[in-house]
């Protein structure tokens, strides 16, 4: 088949939701953060030299056999429990057979009709504070494939490429695939719900500590299925009459690598489907490829129901029957659900909704929590993480949590500000030193000499010097134009190289330039 990269017609969003009812299906692949691969002892670290984290098993060499990573099973069960799923009392792996060069065995060891976890749900908080329940069909274990890089083509895709390179470091990394039931009743909020679901899932997985959940590194990947059906006039999106309408043909959009992309891709597909349906064209059941830059999807391979993976139970692995006592034990290790935890922290910290949401979106809740635990006031901790540090992380293109500063250091820094040792501006310079690896905040204060000067003699001399250097300004102040003192404060601060308390400088200046008959006690600050 040929690939069309031409832009397809789309319908205006308002028109789409007026005429059609969208149904979503979200498949999320999560790479577990186990130390070793799913079926062998190879390390799983990201970014190693290609084909250096491989062995006969994950290369699928003739004769090699898989052995299940117990930690992988444990993570799968914990994920299932956190998603309110039933845990299988007996289940197996299955082989999914198809040929592709990045699959060492030309079958993927996965689970088919016997998943480890099934029948769950995840309650998703939306922007307006309401909750939408997404039902979970199943969560199953499988192994990742190798990673293909197509060289020589313009698009980085296989079509038109000159040759392809395969890195098998990724082959055999444990994956959990989480599949929703058809998400009905989303209506015009379908794009938002898709994004909010993936976001909620990401928070949950992060709280479980089972994955790095880095969408940009592919440790969390989302495939968004979408279909439209005719809207039943005069009924709500989730009404029984609406649900009775058969589902339309779906498309499956891949390569959706950020939360924003999930929302945009679903929205785009809704408008594309609607335009086709409105024009009397059929929807092709196919895989679509999302393009972040242009904001559209293009056709991938056609995925008909005729595709046959010839599943059968994996004979090289024994069936699993997790001990119920163990499952109960794992249930006891589940973290507080992230939304609940957020509400609790928000109340404890006294943050406004918007402030809290910024922290959540920045992935800074845990960091603020740790900073508060280390002694900082919540407001100050929030200011550092969603202000200066978020700005620097953004500029450096790294995750906030990856910044080379610990919550304890941020708390210590704030402690120096609170003690009057540093001004805010000096504290930012100290932070710079900490980020540059110059040591603890106190060390940087010493080594860079950034302490606030509290020596009244030096400060007094600088004040006198500023008055002497700017006689015109000084006269203005003396004549009652108090606002003019700002310029003198600036001059003093410049002379002190910032290492002075601006309020104290202002007080000293005002005192010295006060009219002789003034009775105002200006020394109080």
């Amino acid at each position, binding site marked *: 088949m040929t690939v069309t990269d031409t832009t397809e017609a789309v319908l205006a969003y308002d028109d789409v939701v007026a005429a059609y009812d969208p149904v979503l299906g979200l498949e999320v692949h999560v790479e577990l953060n186990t130390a070793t691969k799913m079926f062998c002892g190879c390390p799983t670290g990201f970014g190693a030299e290609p084909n250096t984290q491989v062995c006969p098993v994950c290369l*699928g060499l*003739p004769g090699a056999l898989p052995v299940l990573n117990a930690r992988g099973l444990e993570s799968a069960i914990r994920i299932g429990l956190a998603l309110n799923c039933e845990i299988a009392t007996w289940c197996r792996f299955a082989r999914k057979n198809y040929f592709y060069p990045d699959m060492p065995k030309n079958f993927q060891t996965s689970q088919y009709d016997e998943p480890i976890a099934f029948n769950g749900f995840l309650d998703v908080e939306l922007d307006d504070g309401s909750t939408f329940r997404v039902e979970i069909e199943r969560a199953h274990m499988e192994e990742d494939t190798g990673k293909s890089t197509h060289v020589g083509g313009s698009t980085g895709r296989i079509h038109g490429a000159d040759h392809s390179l395969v890195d098998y470091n990724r082959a055999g990394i444990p994956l959990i695939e989480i599949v929703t039931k058809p998400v009905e009743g989303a209506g015009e909020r379908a794009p938002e719900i898709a994004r909010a679901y993936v976001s909620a899932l990401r928070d949950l997985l992060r709280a479980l500590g089972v994955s790095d959940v880095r969408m940009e590194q592919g440790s969390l990947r989302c495939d968004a299925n979408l279909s439209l059906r005719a809207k039943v006039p005069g009924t709500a999106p989730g009404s029984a009459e609406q649900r009775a309408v058969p589902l339309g043909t779906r498309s499956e959009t891949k390569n959706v690598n950020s939360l924003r992309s999930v929302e945009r891709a679903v929205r785009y597909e809704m408008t594309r489907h609607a335009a086709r349906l409105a024009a009397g064209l059929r929807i092709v059941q196919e895989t679509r490829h999302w393009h972040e830059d242009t904001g559209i999807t293009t056709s991938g391979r056609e995925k008909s129901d005729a595709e046959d993976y010839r599943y059968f139970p994996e004979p090289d692995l024994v069936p699993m029957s997790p001990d119920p006592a163990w499952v109960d034990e794992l249930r006891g290790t589940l973290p507080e659900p992230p939304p609940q935890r957020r509400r609790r922290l928000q109340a404890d910290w006294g943050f406004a909704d918007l402030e809290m949401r910024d922290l959540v979106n920045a992935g800074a809740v845990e960091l603020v929590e740790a900073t508060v635990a280390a002694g900082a006031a919540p407001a100050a901790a929030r200011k550092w993480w969603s202000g200066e540090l978020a700005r620097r992380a953004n500029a450096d293109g790294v995750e906030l949590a990856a910044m080379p500063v610990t919550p304890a250091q941020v708390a210590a820094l704030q402690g120096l500000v609170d003690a009057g040792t540093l001004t805010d501006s000096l504290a930012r310079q100290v932070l710079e030193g900490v980020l540059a690896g110059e040591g603890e905040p106190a060390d940087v204060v010493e080594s860079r000499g950034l302490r606030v000067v509290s020596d009244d003699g030096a400060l007094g001399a600088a004040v006198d010097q500023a008055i002497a250097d700017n006689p015109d300004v000084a006269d203005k102040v003396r004549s009652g134009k108090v606002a003019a003192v700002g310029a003198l404060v600036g001059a003093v601060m410049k002379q002190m190289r910032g290492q002075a308390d601006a309020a104290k400088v202002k007080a000293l200046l005002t005192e010295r330039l006060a009219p002789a008959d003034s009775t105002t006690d200006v020394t109080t600050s």
Partner: protein
Amino acid sequence: MTGTTLPADLTRATAAGLAQALAAREVSAVEVAQAHLDRIAAVDGTRDADGVATGKAVHAFLHVCAENALADAKAVDDARAAGQTLPVLAGVPIAVKDVMATRGLPTTCGSRILQGWVPPYDATVVANIRAARMVVLGKTNMDEFAMGSSTEHSAYGPTRNPWDLDRIPGGSGGGSAASLAAFETPLATGTDTGGSIRQPASVTGTVGVKPTYGAVSRYGLVALASSLDQAGPCARTVLDTALLHQVMAGHDPMDSTSLTGEYPDVVAAARAGATGSLDGVTVGVVRELSGDGYQAGVLRRFEESLAVLTEAGAKVVEVSCPSFAVALAAYYLILPSEASSNLAKFDAMRYGLRVEPGGVAAPTAEQVMGATRAAGFGDEVKRRIILGTYALSSGYYDAYYGSAQKVRTLIQRDFAAAFGQADVLVSPTSPTTAFPLGDKLENPLAMYLQDVATIPANLAGVPGMSLPSGLADEDGLPVGLQILAPAGADDRLYRVGGALEAILTARWGGSVLDRVPDLSAALATAANGATR
């Protein structure tokens, strides 16, 4: 310990005898290895640059590693000279079936598609053999990917039966069995998915055991049908087989289906059996595994064996396993299904053969895969891949693979019932003696029927042994007796087999293999025929 007496020709010695003489330093491992390498050079024949057998000879080996073997043997001698105590079989030669991954030695599985592949790792079985300080002589021929009962499906030409060079040595492990019958090695390894150890043993007059599923690690055996494959020992005597069994078996954390827990002492069982007494043992004769379709001479030897077992004190009863009638059918659904998936990895992308399709300027990966698999697999392999792909197809799975698995359960129940009545079961191993090369090549079903008596054990995971019960009257060729035991009771095979062997060899005045025709004469005739 007093000195042992080894035959002047070291290749006629048993592994047990060699082990004892080596330990006593009456003979060196280098001498033993050299004797066997010389024998291989004399009888095994030659291969062309492409690895294909040339001329009429045994052709049991696909690859002989003389230098490695002599170096390993020398290391054993040096260790013994330095006073080290070594494992029992240290210095005893062994041939390894080419389905087992051997680090640094070619491993082809008798297929073109793996020509030139040298594994970077050892199968656990091979690692066990090396840890036992045994001397690997080389890799033995087999039907391609162990699919066949004659070695005629090897891409490198068939192995010939030392009893008659115009006949098949059985399969798939015909190379290992022929190497024993030709006295090229005292021990060999095999794998048995439906009879590939037992049927070759039967038609070459040697001994072979398929252990309980999971008793020997499958790690490093190139898989045919994962749920049926089981590696096991091949030798010329019951005791030698037990000695090798002991080395090969054991729990392996690299194989999820490997058994944990106690393994029976098969060597002790073989020695106990050799006393010739089977008092208190009940032997069940499986009604469904004899009669129609079995060669008269085979049945006669079988009846004789039953009489011997009775003589030894065993009680012989008849048992019925009605589901065995559909075992072959179930097997030929399960095996191709699993094989079609197991063989998918041979795609030219990472190792082995790579064939570029003709007439295509810039072939896609898919086209290269297709061309390679078309050129690299033989007809029988393709036949089974097609069968298996079909059987696993959506909509057919339940009818084929699903029902076959149900049959498997029925067969397991039949075995359970039979073992409720008897300690071991017996039958002829193979319905016929060795048939002429080419006889069944055009008739796959006739070939498949060779395994009718051996397949039930694989489907149920129970252990089985084949050992010689004499020569058929009509053709003078070896006949095998099969003994089956419950899962985990592999020692019973050795106890009963040991007793039968002791009584029969005493009656014959020696091993049945003493009557293998003089190969050098046969080879000379063949050579004359070629020059005439």
